[in-house]
């Protein structure tokens, strides 16, 4: 029963284009999963290698073809809206599957789906990261909710 409740809290399934259910992770879950010594919980690790969906703002910290970018809970443009993410736990390093063909808007929420990785990893170009998505596909998330009031 407890495990089932935990699963419901952690996972909000979403339908993929091919009809399969893809679990959706939130930034709140990523923050909660952080443990001492740069470690993360087994629950979040269990998604490693699996396709997940995360909604967030694109921070184009990599090349302009968006083959790599950061996915954040907060937009890079809103200087006074809210607390800026300060560490690895609130930022997902996204490696896009191919050239991302989107109309980039820093104030728009995007739905990113890709193979999730949790745990410390060092990339030659992009350095140390805690959460990553590989072979990611990006699309606009119309009406997406980033802050879930009363949620996890």
């Amino acid at each position: 029963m407890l495990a089932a409740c935990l699963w419901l809290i952690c996972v909000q399934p979403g339908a993929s284009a091919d009809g399969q259910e893809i679990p959706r992770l939130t930034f709140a879950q990523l923050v909660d999963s952080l443990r001492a010594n740069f470690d993360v919980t087994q629950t979040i690790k269990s998604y490693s290698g699996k396709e997940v969906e995360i909604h967030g703002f694109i921070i184009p910290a990599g090349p302009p073809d968006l083959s790599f970018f950061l996915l954040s809970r907060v937009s890079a443009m809103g200087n006074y809206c809210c607390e800026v993410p300060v560490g690895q736990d609130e930022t997902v390093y996204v490696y896009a599957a191919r050239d991302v063909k989107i109309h980039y808007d820093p104030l728009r929420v995007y739905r990113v789906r890709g193979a999730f990785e949790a745990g410390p990893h060092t990339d030659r170009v992009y350095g140390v990261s805690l959460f990553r998505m590989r072979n990611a596909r990006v699309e606009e998330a119309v009406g997406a909710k980033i802050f879930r009031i009363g949620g996890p």
Partner: protein
Amino acid sequence: MTVLAVAVKYLRGRFVPSGLTVLSVALGVTLLVASLLLTRSIREGFIEGTTDYGLVVGAKGSPTQLVLNVVFRMDLPTPNIVYSTYRRLLDDARVEVAVPVALGDAYQGFRYVATTGAYFAASPWRRRVFVISGGRFFQDDALEQPTYEAVLGAEAARRTGLRVGDRFYEGEEQAEYPLTVVGILRPSGGADDRTIFFSLPTYWQMNEVSRKMKIKPLTAILVRAKRMSDLPGLHRGLNVATETQAVFPSAVLLDIFNLLSAAEEVLTAILATVAFIVLLYLFVSLYSATLERKREIATMRALGARRSTILAIVLWESCALATLGGAAGILGGHGAAHLATSWLASRGGLVTNRFPFSTLEPMALGAVILLGALAGLLPAVLAYRTEVAENLAPLS
């Protein structure tokens, strides 16, 4: 005689009209292919020419102006920031590398960039490597003892004709402070090829105003964070400050690409119109040719040719015209794109000049042939329905 041979014979018989039709198809396809390749080339030029650094820090103002000037050496420099901003960033635990740059004057149109040796330092995360092809890098000299040594980008050296050991200046004011070429860089494929580099003390001493300033000015600082996840925090802190702004270079480029995509949509509409006009011309050409030779078709039918054979002959003709025009257009498009990018590059434009043939070309040729067949369908049906008795009647 095969159907194809008959079709070719017909086309040869109408050499001038057929040639003009091929030319019109070729010109239309050339325009389409060249436009697509040029658009891609401009986009790739910006992508390849961008900086390796995550943030560009400068004075408050236009982020686009800051990035275009500091990264691509276009537009005018933004107002100055103070040197202490650079010192603060160097001391920030989140910053791995901070490189100060000052931009201002130019020699024969090639921008001066004053910086430190860190600008050229190799690193695993850097896509661009700076290699000296002749001479050496300039020294990071002391503030009081500028050496006036300059390192030239490959294109700047080639176009100005300056060599290692040459001394140069531009403008009366700088006659007292001539620069000496100590090194020339190998081509790196970016705006740095068109740049003249020297040290910050040299820059400050060369300019009358900065010479007198106690707190020395900079145009911008290029920043690499130790962890990418620290970039949003650094970005926010520098933007909330009253004097500075921090910009993600890719964000500015993506904004430019968004503007370009609006122009591309207009271009697509124009190109679609051109394609339609070319198809219409092909249709009119084949239609009038079919009307002209109704008697010949009737004769062929009377000699035993089946309706389907007549249909195939006209379709083969239209496909042959489209194939010749399409192939010539694809080659012409590549040639035109190559010429246009060479011209743009010579004028300081950021473009790539690589147009390898890919799966796109066979697909484009296939599409042209298919559309050609479509344009020939109605004339082919007209030929198919040609009545022998009606068209073999005496002309008088």
